[in-house]
């Protein structure tokens, strides 16, 4: 709340100080923020789900995104970029997206059964173990693909002309696709959580696992589904991050803390909070250049630092986050 208010204040003063000519620039930052937010939201939901159901802060979540992104890279290489296109993205890219989701989900479920499940430690032990898991994921990606960067074999687009003419916003069809597909996934998750038996059992398990169990809910299945959904969304986030930027073995880990900031802002363990927090943090992150434009000497290089400071402030003032669910 405080963050968004002060952000709005900065934006208003930016337009006031720099005049109407600054508006297209500002709209550009906002549009870019929406695209980046979409990726953070996808990552944040998974992190929040794991937290609410498996009860630990999963430090391997960022590297799960990386795994998804590289699975997409391999698939795109195998399927190719020929054939019809949707949003100027070849069908091969959508195959890559599905592969990213599937591989991330499979890897996470396998990790759950091989590593987390047999452990006899508390949630802090799980947290520490997840750091080891993160290192193993990243090391395997590096061993297979090296430490350099990759890009998806898809031509970089020029901004959509009519939007640019009309508003001055430079937005490519790829970015529109990222936002639309992410929104679809988020809406689908909402439907699953609210209107299906799986969703009800998931919410029940998150609420009180023992009670869910005595009510006849097979919580182990719920936990598996949770890993599939959480890691699948992380895989999608990874593929989109690869399309938005480029692929590198550290791409996910570097984003992890920003995703944590989003999740904490929204209220850790709350899926809807993660959506809201992801949106705010993504926006703030991409709006950082405004600070320099209005004369506050904080460079864009500090975009992540601002997110972390917001995170710590939220923890201090309102540890339950925006969504305000009681965390136990």
């Amino acid at each position: 709340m405080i963050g968004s208010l002060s952000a709005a204040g900065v934006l208003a003063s930016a337009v006031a100080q720099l005049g109407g000519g600054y508006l297209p620039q500002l709209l550009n930052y906002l549009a870019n923020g929406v695209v980046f937010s979409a990726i953070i939201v996808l990552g944040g939901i998974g992190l929040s789900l794991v937290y609410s159901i498996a009860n630990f802060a999963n430090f391997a979540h960022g590297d799960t995104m990386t795994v998804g992104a590289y699975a997409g890279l391999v698939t795109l290489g195998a399927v190719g970029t020929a054939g019809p296109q949707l949003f100027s993205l070849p069908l091969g890219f959508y195959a890559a997206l599905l592969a990213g989701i599937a591989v991330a989900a499979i890897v996470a479920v396998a990790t759950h059964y091989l590593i987390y499940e047999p452990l006899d430690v508390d949630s802090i032990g799980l947290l520490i173990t997840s750091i080891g898991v993160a290192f193993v994921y990243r090391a395997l990606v590096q061993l297979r693909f090296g430490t350099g960067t990759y890009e998806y074999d898809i031509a970089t687009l020029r901004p959509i002309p009519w939007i640019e003419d009309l508003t001055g916003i430079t937005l490519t069809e790829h970015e529109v696709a990222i936002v639309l597909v992410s929104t679809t996934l988020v809406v689908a998750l909402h439907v699953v959580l609210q209107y299906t038996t799986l969703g009800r059992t998931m919410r029940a398990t998150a609420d009180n696992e023992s009670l869910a169990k005595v009510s006849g809910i097979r919580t182990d299945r719920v936990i598996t589904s949770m890993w599939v959904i959480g890691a699948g969304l992380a895989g999608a986030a990874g593929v989109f991050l690869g399309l938005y930027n480029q692929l590198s073995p550290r791409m996910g880990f570097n984003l992890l803390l920003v995703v944590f900031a989003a999740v904490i802002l929204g209220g850790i363990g709350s899926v809807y909070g993660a959506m809201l927090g992801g949106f705010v943090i993504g926006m703030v992150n991409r709006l950082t250049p405004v600070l320099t434009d209005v004369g506050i000497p904080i460079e864009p290089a500090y975009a992540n630092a601002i997110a972390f400071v917001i995170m710590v402030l939220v923890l201090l003032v309102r540890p339950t986050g925006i969504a305000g669910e009681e965390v136990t």
Partner: protein
Amino acid sequence: MADETRSAFEESEDTRQAQIERATNAVLVAAALALVGGTLVGLVSPSYLVFLVSLAAMYGLLSLGLNVQWGYAGLINFSVAAFFGLGAYVPVLLSASGSPITDAVPPIVGLFAAVVVTVLLALAIGIPTLSLREDYLAIASLGLAEVVRLVFRNQENWTGGTSGVGGIPLFFEGVPVLGTLPRDIGTVDLGIYTLGFQFWNGLLNALIVGSFVLVSYLVLRRVHRSPWGRVLRTIRSDEDLAEALGKNAYAFRMQAFVLGSVVTMLAGVYYAYSNYFLTPGIFDPIYTFYAWIAVILGGSGSNRGALFGGVVIVAIIEGTRAFGLSASWRLFAVGLLIILVMRFRPQGVLPPRDELIWPGARGGGTDE
């Protein structure tokens, strides 16, 4: 937490623990003999041997510092790298010829400046985070360490930014005798080796970091057994109990956090003066996780375990290098080690012995 403490306590009574300790000692002695033997037959250069020992001491300091925070007080501190980097940067920015600030301050004085800055940063990170629940503390401290890293990367006018700081003097620069000692000894010819400036300087640095470790170890062992250490252990296992006994848990945690940060900082001082050049790479969170592995592997709460963990980290880092394996394999080994320790020995290899009893109180052979 309570379970962990109890299991560590029970294990120490166990004969299995005695076996593990004997095996660990045997491995350590064998490794030391192999290295010394390798040096005698000309396989391992004396400079490298000294470097290895110093590096083990450096990681030992990182893990000793973290052990005060996590092992004694149960604080999940993921900002180790920030204090490691600070220990390196503060004296260097005051003493190096390439520093954008000044090169007029002797490194030894810089060391004390680093202590002051470390205490201030520890308070700055600790005040907002130490009252947080444990997993929040992990995330928040990692985030704040990242802020510190970003500041050192981007404030080029103060830190030289990503291009780093060059022209780092010797640690004893300006001190009579010690300042020029490595040069004055000159070259000693031992047949297979010629020991020159590099060796003597390395040896002096090893003595510096060795004395840091020795002092830290003795101080920490003493405070661990003191009433202060007892209160910390109480807070770790049952905070409500400690509060009910009138202990201010927040204040005790803060003291442990600051004390551990100062020990961590010492590792950075060694790192800076054993190199000619310093870059913000020292703030990489990997150093935080190295310290964590060392502490967990050694056994949370155990100082000798922390030192043992430091030795293992060096064995992994330098071992993979010696076999020509890439950094990716090192990362893999480190990750796998974390998973295996948490799976098979969450209390660590050398958990604290008789944590709750003053050693003298046991007498001879009165084990029940």
